[in-house]
């Protein structure tokens, strides 16, 4: 026992050490990685806002426009160390512009070599955001580890693993001609479900039952969504917001729906199977009816909050666009159908998946328990 404890701490210690080292290493790298970029990067050393102009448009929107003079030092490439002068225009609202500050790194286009002794001139392309993304990722990792300990660690691993699977699946989709996105999404969904549930719950019958009910639940939800779209002839769905895609966006939407509801369906499936198996373990002679009744009771408690979770994730992303439409004189029905139809359809179809997984989860778990009883 003592030995085990000692071993554990050794493993933990080395884990912490690796974590700390990679934290320091990556933070150092991300702050001094200018050489890895081909595009010139300028560090802002001086920023002065000069003139201001008040704006108003035909819809009565009022805004203020500022002109900003920036001086910076080029950090990489052939002009490294040289000064650059940049002009920037930003508005108070900032829908497509930014107010830059001293110390920030910007990607710039340089007009050409400087004329004897003067500073370079150029235009701003974009902000260098990598260091913030990395820093926030570390905050996320530390918060999850400190609060969640082992479970936090598994959440991080499962997120990373699922992101890799998704990225790989999309690579296959992009590189294969005439690839069916729905088929690829189905295979990835199986992988997502198996890896996530095994990571969270380990190898046991609870997990197997949850995997089966997740798959059935997601596919039933997808079938119903297909049915609803078919029965209504797709009336009411506006794909305008996906127009930037050079791919059949109906399919992309369906695949997104599929993947998006998966997490919630998994959550319901594991909750159902875990609670029904607990009932069975506490009383191996429990009747099927009793398990069904308790299962439905638990299901009732979770269906409201679970559907709400999906609903907010989907809808909230549309708020800025909705506001832009409304401020540009578009009426509510129009703004609503352009910006919210896909999100609401997703939330409703995902909700269907959640609710239907409750009975599916109950019957699957009971099936597994029956098999176990028969084997004994």
């Amino acid at each position, binding site marked *: 026992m003592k030995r085990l404890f000692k071993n554990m701490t050794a493993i933990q210690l080395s884990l912490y050490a690796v974590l700390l080292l990679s934290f320091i290493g990556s933070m150092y790298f991300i702050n001094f990685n200018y050489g890895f970029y081909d595009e010139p990067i300028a560090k802002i050393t001086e920023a002065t806002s000069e003139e201001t102009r008040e704006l108003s448009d035909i819809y009565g929107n009022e805004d203020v426009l500022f002109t900003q003079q920036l001086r910076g030092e080029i950090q990489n490439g052939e002009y490294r160390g040289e000064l650059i002068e940049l002009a920037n225009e930003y508005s108070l609202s900032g829908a497509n512009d930014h107010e830059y500050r001293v110390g920030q790194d910007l990607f710039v286009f340089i007009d050409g070599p400087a004329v004897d002794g003067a500073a370079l001139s150029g235009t701003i392309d974009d902000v260098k955001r990598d260091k913030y993304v990395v820093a926030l990722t570390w905050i996320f990792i530390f918060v999850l580890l400190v609060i969640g300990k082992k479970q936090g660690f598994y959440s991080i691993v499962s997120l990373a693993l699922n992101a890799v699977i998704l990225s790989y699946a999309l690579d296959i989709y992009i590189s294969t001609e005439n690839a069916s996105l729905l088929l690829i999404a189905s295979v990835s969904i199986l992988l997502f479900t198996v890896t996530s549930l095994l990571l969270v719950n380990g190898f046991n019958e609870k997990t197997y039952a949850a995997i089966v009910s997740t798959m059935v639940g997601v596919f039933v939800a997808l079938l119903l969504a297909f049915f609803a779209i078919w029965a209504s002839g797709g009336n009411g769905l506006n794909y305008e917001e996906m127009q930037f895609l050079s791919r059949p966006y109906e399919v992309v939407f369906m695949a997104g729906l599929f993947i998006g509801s998966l997490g919630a369906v998994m959550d319901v499936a594991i909750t159902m199977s875990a609670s029904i198996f607990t009932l069975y373990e506490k009383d191996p002679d429990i009747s099927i009816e009793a398990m069904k009744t308790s299962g439905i009771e638990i299901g009732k408690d979770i269906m409201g909050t679970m559907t709400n979770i999906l609903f*907010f994730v989907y809808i909230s992303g549309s708020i800025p666009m909705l506001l832009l439409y409304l401020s540009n004189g578009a009426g509510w029905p129009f703004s609503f159908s352009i910006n919210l139809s896909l999100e609401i359809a997703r939330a409703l179809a995902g909700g269907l998946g959640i609710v239907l997984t409750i009975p599916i989860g109950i019957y699957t778990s009971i099936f597994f328990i029956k098999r176990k009883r028969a084997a004994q």
Partner: protein
Amino acid sequence: MNVLILLAIMLCMAMVMIGGKKGAISFLSLFINFLILLFTVYMMSNPDNDPILWAIIACVAISCVNLFFINGVNNTTVAAFLSTVITMIVLLFFILITTDLTMINGFGEEEIDELSMFSLYIGISFVELAAVVIIISTIGAITDIAISITSPMREVHFHNPGISRRELVRAGFAIGRDLLGTSTNTLFFAFFGSYLGLLIWFKDLSYSLGQIVNSKVFTAEMITILCAGIGIALVIPIASWITAYLLTRKSGSVK
């Protein structure tokens, strides 16, 4: 027939068939939350109203619906409500700092081409809106975890009335940790699903890693996912402490 109405009818039927009265209440809460959200957007469309303030009002109203309307007013829901509001405000400040630093405000490149006919200078702060979007997308998950921690904690306290505050907090942490994996998964996949179009777009453009990591759209997605995860983790200690405090304080006054 409109797809949305058809889907809504199907969902309502499923919820009532499986959940009975509670199912009907759950469906109604979804509808009420939608109205709250629309009202919030309406208030935000007036540049004189502060988006952050209205986001806080919306979140308070939404957690009232999710907790009090679905589960009734009692010790457990009050504790969950307090934990939700405190977590939300802490998280909101964190998100505001992040969105300000990373400059993910406004629209991404894939959207901006379509918006050429719009006036973008509408006087509403898009830096604040970026934070509003993140906080509202996580509010459902935060209330869910809060109630899932406070109600078993009350059971623990009920079955062991003599339990110390410290023990109770520890129990809360243990309950919360068990929820962490599945709840983060729920959110991650929901985000993956809604970003699928963008991810395909990125892959189609064959951006380099450097371009992806620095782009506004990708950063915004990453920050949303990471902040949501941080929010879910943060509610665990906050809910455990508040519930333990409320439960032990009450038992103290009874004695």
